[in-house]
């Protein structure tokens, strides 16, 4: 018995000693609100691991991707200890640089499989290697200005389809003499709206097996048609990422549609509009249709070149695999957890003052189960670049129908990637 107690206490000591043992500095690369969210988990992390110093560097989204690829191509040069990666783009890394990142199964991630929804893992694995841990997801919702909607006489509850949305836009146009639009769409700079709507209609660039191009399937045609209808009805304006934020700050748009992580973007960029904003589900293509979609969502990986992999993994585990870490990020920057236990946290049900005391997280997380599957594949960027142009050309009137535009896109994506167009 004495022996058992001794060995038990030895074990306990070893356990806490291990936490004390982890030391040094780990560098984390991330972007914008996501970087701030990771930063907000550091205090609780340091309670467990007081000797590990975490340095979060906000490089901006594109820069993280570019420098990561360059670093991997250079055999792991100039890489951080923790690397942020968007799910859509993750497969490029695993496909081209299978040795650039640590297989997290070797660190114990295989024990966490059931803690996350299965769809979050698919893009993060290659063979049986698990290259990154799921972080946030991007269930799409419509953010709207309560005051502007009210002034124009629009009731958000009545907007159930895209046709309803267009009708609401016309009311807004009439009320504000075209000085306020219903939304800003990135046209010619990005194709986010197309991706959100395509996903909503069960379509994407590629099929879920990543074996064929499916961008000209009926769901995608509906998506592109809807975008054209929004432009033709003149209820939307055009702007890139920065332009969209500028419009929100200036009160030139009455709503914005994005993955739920945009909550933090609006809240931190327009703090003076507190209480004026609300959230409703994205409109469906037809009455009774799907009102959910996913845009973005990220993961964290550990580069093989990291000198401090144990501390890096401890950071990942604390920030992503504990409800505490995930809810901290939800609170500070609105990053929507994909950890199943965190989605049941009491905080999810609480009223949010910024959002006019609406319990927005309940609304947003409630859509997760309806999100159709979609997969980025390692050719995501090729397909995206092509689709950006085809969408802009179609809006401009260069194609007669959305089907014709997407047939052309499918042909181009096929020739760029070598994948066949699905029948």
């Amino acid at each position, binding site marked *: 018995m004495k022996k058992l107690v001794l060995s038990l206490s030895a074990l306990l000591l070893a356990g806490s000693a291990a936490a004390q043992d982890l030391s040094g500095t780990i560098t984390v690369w991330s972007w914008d609100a996501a970087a701030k969210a990771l930063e907000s988990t550091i205090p609780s992390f340091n309670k467990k691991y007081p000797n590990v110093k975490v340095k979060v560097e906000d490089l901006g989204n594109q820069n993280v991707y*570019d420098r990561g690829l360059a670093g991997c191509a250079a055999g792991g040069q100039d890489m951080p200890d923790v690397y942020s990666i968007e799910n859509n783009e993750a497969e490029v890394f695993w*496909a081209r640089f299978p040795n650039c990142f640590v297989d997290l199964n070797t660190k114990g991630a295989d024990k966490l499989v059931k803690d996350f929804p299965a769809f979050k893992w698919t893009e993060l694995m290659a063979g049986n290697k698990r290259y990154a841990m799921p972080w946030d997801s991007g269930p799409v919702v419509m953010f709207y200005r309560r005051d502007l909607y009210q002034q124009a006489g629009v009731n958000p509850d009545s907007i159930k389809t895209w046709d309803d949305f267009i009708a609401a836009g016309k009311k807004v146009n009439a009320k504000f003499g075209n000085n306020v639009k219903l939304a800003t769409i990135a046209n010619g*700079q990005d194709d986010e709206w197309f991706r959100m709507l395509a996903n909503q209609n069960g379509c994407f660039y590629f099929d879920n097996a990543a074996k064929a191009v499916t961008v000209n399937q009926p769901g995608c045609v509906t998506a592109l048609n809807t975008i054209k209808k929004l432009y033709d009805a003149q209820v939307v304006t*055009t702007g890139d990422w920065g332009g969209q934020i500028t419009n929100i700050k200036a009160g030139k748009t009455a709503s914005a549609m994005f993955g739920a992580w945009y909550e933090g973007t609006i809240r931190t960029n327009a703090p003076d509009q507190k209480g004026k904003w609300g959230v409703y589900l994205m409109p469906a293509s037809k009455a009774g249709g799907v009102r959910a979609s996913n845009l973005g969502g990220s993961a964290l990986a550990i580069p093989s070149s990291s000198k401090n992999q144990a501390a890096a993994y401890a950071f990942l585990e604390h920030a992503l695999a504990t409800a505490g870490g995930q809810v901290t990020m939800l609170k500070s920057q609105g990053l929507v957890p994909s950890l199943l236990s965190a989605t049941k946290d009491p905080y999810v049900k609480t009223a949010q003052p910024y959002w006019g005391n609406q319990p927005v997280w309940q609304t947003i997380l409630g859509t997760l189960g309806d999100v159709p599957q979609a997969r980025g594949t390692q050719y995501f960027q090729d397909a995206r670049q092509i689709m950006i142009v085809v969408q802009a050309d179609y809006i401009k009137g260069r194609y007669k129908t959305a089907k014709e535009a997407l047939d052309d896109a499918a042909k181009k994506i096929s020739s760029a990637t070598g994948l066949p167009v699905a029948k």
Partner: protein
Amino acid sequence: MTTSQPLSPPPRRAGRWARTPKAPYLFILPYLLIFATFWAWPIVSSFLMSFKDSRLGADAPYALSNWSRLIEDEFFRTALRNTMVILVVQVPLMLSLATVLAVALNSKLLKAAGWFRFAFFAPLVVGTVAYSAVFRLLFNTDFGVVNRALTGIGLPAVDWLNQSGPAMSVIIMAMTWRWTGYNAIILLAGLQGISEDVYEAASIDGATPAQQFWKITLPLLRPTLLFCMVLSVIGTLQLFTEPALITNSGPGNATMTLGTYLYQQGFRSFNFGYASAIAYTVAAIAAVFSLIQLRLFGRER
């Protein structure tokens, strides 16, 4: 007569190598090694890579797939067309402006010539990222000063960065703003190389200033103009910064150049094989253009 004495015949084999001093080669050896490693080898390596599908990994078999894709790639043709538009519109515009500017800067009537020379050269000193950001702000549709000025004098506002034609004109204006002064300074140096005597003689013969400009200044400035033109053409073929930072190649592909397309393929899609094929095509086009210019304008009288 010492010369009548025949010289002993040179040794047959040891010959030139033995007599050549070796020290110079040893001295330049470090440079040659660095040149071979960092210049020559990458050039060869990227040529080899243009025959591989680098997305399949390093072991991909050699094939012509990148080159055949290049031939039918509509995006590549768009990039080529955009680059040519800039070449045909911007380079002549800029060089004419630079010539006029150089003549003005060279004028004896100009006070504070040094200050003006600096002022026109200054745009080049500004960081590219900073000046691109400023141009983005100037041409912002809703908040930009350009549209404020247009609407101020009763003209309609232009959606500069979200429409293809206006976006291209922003790129051309930005490049002209940045590079005209640089070319003017080079041309100014050329002007100062022309002897005063020629003009004096011309005035005595009763030539008007306009006649002097067309008949004396321009012909004598030709070598300098040619130098500026070749540099500008090569610069335009490699054009990257302005379309990448001001318009992000957009809207759509409206301002995509060979440079930004190469970058997109190489560093966005990480398709180095295809990017190498594009790079080699750009280099070939640049070589052909330089050759044509030298042939057309470079002949000596």
